[in-house]
């Protein structure tokens, strides 16, 4: 058995577009996840019984079932609810809801990590209410949750591979198409694995740089 990577190399254009598809899924999924996360925390902080319970239930269900089951459920549930979306949009929605549940937990932890005494100290020092929120609550909370959100983003990027199961447009489904045409399974999946590794290493590096730039402690 000899390896033949030439068929994979020939398909470099499809792989490139597949990679862009994966990045698109990850970015749009994360954007929705952030919205879901912030909304969820707002609802939790209103401290109303039923809405809080619903948010908690949503978080627990998402965190304790596999993404594959979630995406299947959504894929079949949406048409029954009268919503007809193409697989890629369904995948983005599923990624957004899945990531959102984790984002709720992360953001809640960040908000709770700011002790009340800190805002009171800021007010006592004569800072304006808005300054207190921006400098003493928002930035430190973001600083506290940024690493978790960053690794959540990487995780979400890797999760996009599962979207191939409803044939959304992304790298793995492109790879499976190449595999079906060439029967070079190992070569295809080895290449895909390498591409994913590069994506996550580069993303990790970029996010670390972003974190240093935006959230390092002031030097002066």
């Amino acid at each position, binding site marked *: 058995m000899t390896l033949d990577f030439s068929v994979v190399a020939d398909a470099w254009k499809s792989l490139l577009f597949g990679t862009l598809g994966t990045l698109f899924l990850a970015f749009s999924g994360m954007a929705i996840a952030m919205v879901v996360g912030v909304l969820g925390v707002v609802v939790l902080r209103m401290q109303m019984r039923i809405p809080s319970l619903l948010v908690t239930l949503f978080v*627990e269900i998402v*965190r304790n*079932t*596999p993404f*594959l*089951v979630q995406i299947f459920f959504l894929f*079949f549930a949406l048409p029954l609810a009268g919503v007809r979306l193409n697989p890629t949009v369904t995948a983005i929605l599923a990624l957004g809801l899945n990531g959102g549940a984790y984002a709720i937990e992360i953001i809640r932890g960040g908000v709770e990590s700011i002790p009340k005494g800190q805002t009171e100290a800021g007010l006592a020092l004569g800072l304006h209410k808005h300054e207190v929120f921006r400098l003493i609550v928002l930035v430190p909370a973001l600083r506290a949750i940024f690493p978790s959100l960053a690794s959540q983003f990487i995780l979400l990027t890797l999760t996009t591979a599962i979207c191939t*199961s409803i044939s959304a447009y992304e790298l793995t489904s492109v790879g499976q198409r190449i595999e079906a045409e060439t029967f070079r*399974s190992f070569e295809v999946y080895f290449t895909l694995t390498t591409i994913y590794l590069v994506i996550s290493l580069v993303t990790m590096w970029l996010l670390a740089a972003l974190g240093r730039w935006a959230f390092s402690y002031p030097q002066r």
Partner: protein
Amino acid sequence: MGIQELTYLLQGLLWTLLLTVIGFVGGILFGMVVALLRVSPSPWLRIPMICWIGVFQGTPLLMQLFVAYFGLPLLGFNLPAWAAVSIALTAHASAFLGEIWRGAIQAVPGGQTEAANALGLPGWSRMVDVVMPQAFKLSLPATVGFLVQLLKGTSLAAIVGFIELTRAGTIVSNQIYKPLLVFGVVGALYCVMCWPLSLWGRRLEQRLAVGAAR
């Protein structure tokens, strides 16, 4: 959904549990090796482990399953699907558990090692009797968290064609044309397995936080 379909799902559930147990037990054994080599002072042992962990944490589990499933036969191993999946899950778990335990080992205060040194304990006893028991306690919440992750991860074996709970769900759903009911039940079954573990992990974490605050 009749009793027959439900039995089929439960059969799949048994396979899910079995894959989880194999992956977790294998992951514990190899993860221990990964963690110990990862904290070794020699770069020749440390750097390969950094790469091992980086590769498994930086690629989708689905790709790891595919590479094992199609790659192992190329190496001359003719394995049934469940064995290839088990090997991939074990390797995956060894990297994640290795990294969790690496963190825990390094979180044990340095004074403990120094004290063991001062008492004249030999190297292995320093690690096994002094550092590891403390690291074990520190790592428990994250380890339980990963167990949940692994249990959910076994669902990906469905994509390579192995019949575990999710795949059984797909098959039943194709037979009786009630995807929402079937995947609802499948999701509920996963919840029943994962939720108690998640709660346990959170309780351990809170207990640890109380201990640290003291």
